């Protein structure tokens, strides 16, 4: 977290922060349901299902970084894997999807597991 002095020197645009986190949140909840569908089709159970979710949500973060963040962030002189141009904390970007989409993931996972295996 930046200190108050740093915030005074380089202020943050609150609307952009909200816009970015809303965009990321929408994507994460949508993709979490999608991962649930494929986990249900694969018939994953217990730990392997959660591992599947972990791997694919990290993959989502990497894809967002590569396709959306990296082209302008690297041109702006930021080091690789640095998301501070668009997000305040790196944890929000890399691991925020794990909590945001978990409920939707379990919902569609169980639904499709039941549909396919019934």
């Amino acid at each position, binding site marked *: 977290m930046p200190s108050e002095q740093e915030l005074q020197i*380089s*202020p*943050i*645009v609150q*609307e*952009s*922060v909200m*816009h*970015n986190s809303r*965009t990321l949140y*929408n*994507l994460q909840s*949508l*993709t979490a349901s*999608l*991962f649930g*569908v*494929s986990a249900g*089709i*694969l*018939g994953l159970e217990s730990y392997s299902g959660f591992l599947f979710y972990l791997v*694919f949500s990290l*993959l*989502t973060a990497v*894809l*967002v970084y590569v*396709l*959306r*963040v990296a082209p*302008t962030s690297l041109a*702006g002189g930021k080091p690789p894997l640095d998301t501070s*141009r*668009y*997000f*305040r904390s790196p944890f929000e970007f890399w691991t925020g999807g794990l909590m945001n989409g978990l409920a939707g993931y379990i919902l569609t996972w169980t639904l*499709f597991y039941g*549909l*396919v*295996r019934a």
Partner: protein
Amino acid sequence: MTLLSKAITALGGLLLGHACYSAREHTTLLSLRAATAATLTSSPTAAGSLPLDIIIETIVSTFIILVGLVLGTRPLRPIEWRVWAGKIEREGEEGFTDSSGAVDKDFVGNPFSLLEARPNFVDIRKQRRDFSEWVRKGDAQRAQ
């Protein structure tokens, strides 16, 4: 861009639907076979795993849909004030469009427009020149 992302997502959805249908058929067939086998020998139903091609199709189609969805997200905006204002100065409205090309509703315009429109900095001679030009043009048109 948006057409590309929709096409990729639709392709992935088609593949995922096919994988889902295949998996459903496979398990149905397997349980049917197990049921017929159970009438002959009283063995427990075999918990069958999916064939490798369905697994690969599911994972690949999930990845394809994922790429399509990520391509379809709205462009992010810089959060630092100086970067954001510089982007507005350089690109104007074009930098703040959504994926279908319309300008975002919450685009506020140039944050420095208040400073640039200060009355002390108005170029009054240029405005007077423009006004006299306009009057002269109007006179010339009326004379014709």
